[in-house]
């Protein structure tokens, strides 16, 4: 008689496991691979490969615009992406324009741009320019397509664009080879609707893992030329440009914690069904 009672207690305990214990398990599982600096091979997906190929196809001296539309809440996913793509651009002597539609995100873009530019010995105004932030979302995208200077007469420091050697011949998207939109919200859709559809902008979308599924239809319809989704996308791009960063460091931790979560889901279901069977047997 005592054995079923003991089993029921054990099952019930498992079924009502303290959520804080799960938090500790997840933190430990995330930490161990990082502390041990484990590595895991990363297979590059089609959507990241075509984004890389597009940047690779731009001739030296071509201009790439980066739109920073994320803030610190998404930095772990998007910051490794901007670093990897900037690394690729500067290594190929492409020129970069930085802008953004989210004020609190601009410092992240500036930090990434200036650190990568310094790494490659690039000069402000010649190889890269920061034109800063403007509110207005789609209105800004449309206006830049007509005449960039309508929205940005100066760079973020207040220097007129015509005084910057790199910007002298850049009037609108016609002189920009492609736009990389790094976003944690819906701005890529605005770029697609108003930049790509209206002006034929070649667009690479870099988004959080949560947002990534929403953009596969645009990729399939060839409305965008590449898609990087979440930390995995960053890790794949880091693999392609051979510049390991947080993306690659995080992949083993991602894999381990996903296994742990699958295990916890299975355990939760198993204890639920065992509990129900025990209760049914008790009632019978």
């Amino acid at each position: 008689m005592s054995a079923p009672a003991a089993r029921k207690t054990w099952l019930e305990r498992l079924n009502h496991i303290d959520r804080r214990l799960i938090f500790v398990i997840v933190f430990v599982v995330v930490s161990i691979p990082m502390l041990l600096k484990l590595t895991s091979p990363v297979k590059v997906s089609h959507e990241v490969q075509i984004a890389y190929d597009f940047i690779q196809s731009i001739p030296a001296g071509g201009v790439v615009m980066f739109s920073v539309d994320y803030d610190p809440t998404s930095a772990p996913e998007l910051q490794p992406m901007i670093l990897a793509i900037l690394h690729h651009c500067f290594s190929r002597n492409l020129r970069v324009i930085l802008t953004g539609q989210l004020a609190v995100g601009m410092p992240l873009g500036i930090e990434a741009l200036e650190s990568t530019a310094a790494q490659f010995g690039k000069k402000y105004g010649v190889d890269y320019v920061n034109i800063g932030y403007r509110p207005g979302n789609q209105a800004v995208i449309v206006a830049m397509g007509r005449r960039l200077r309508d929205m940005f007469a100066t760079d973020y420091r207040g220097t007129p664009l015509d005084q910057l050697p790199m910007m002298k011949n850049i009037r609108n998207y016609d002189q920009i080879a492609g736009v990389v939109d790094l976003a944690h919200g819906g701005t890529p859709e605005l770029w697609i609707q108003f930049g790509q559809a209206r002006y034929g902008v070649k667009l690479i979308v870099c988004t959080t893992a949560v947002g990534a599924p929403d953009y596969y239809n645009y990729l399939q319809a060839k409305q965008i030329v590449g898609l990087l989704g979440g930390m995995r996308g960053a890790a794949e791009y880091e693999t392609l440009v051979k510049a390991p960063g947080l993306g690659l460091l995080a992949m083993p931790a991602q894999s381990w914690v996903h296994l742990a979560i699958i295990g916890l889901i299975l355990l939760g279901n198993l204890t639920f069904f065992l509990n129900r069977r025990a209760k049914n047997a008790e009632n019978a």
Partner: protein
Amino acid sequence: MAANLANTIGVWMAVFFTLAILSFLYKDNPFYKLAEYVYVGLSAGYWLIYVMFFDVKPMIVDKFLQEQGFERYIIIFPAFLGALMLCRMIPRIAYVSRVAIAFTMGISAGLGVTGAIHGMILPQVKATMLPLNDINNVIMLVGVISTVVYFYFSREHKGAFGVAAKVGIIFVMISFGAAFGYTVMARISLLIGRAYFLFHDWLGII
């Protein structure tokens, strides 16, 4: 020296606020509340400064001083609408702000309609019209049609129509599953980001 000190102070403050926010996982507490309020206050202040110096000053004040003729005076119109928006803070004349809101709504609706048709609906419909010589194209077509059938509520889901709707819900569920999987990855990425900050920037052990 000063830069190093500022960096050290910055890292320690970030560590304090990271741990304060994570302490909510144990239970709500004053440290979490403090971190939450500081974040909200800082973000609001940051937005205000940014909008003043990167929007109001260059787009209104500087432009008004630089431009000549009609180009100069047309700037008064959006500035006036912006001022009307601020009337919301004065209850007696709050209704005046509706003029500016109506203007914004009109622009957004106009842009939204053209953008959605030209940039989303037409290209997406075109991308669905594919030759059925590939299994992926067949799956996509079945998925699109059956999902549209599922969301068609003007007819009862019975018979062949019901079967199509049931197939549609399977596609919808698969899409939810993929979205949920991606969401788990996103949330874990944020934890990894904070763990990396603690281990690398603060403790320097990785």
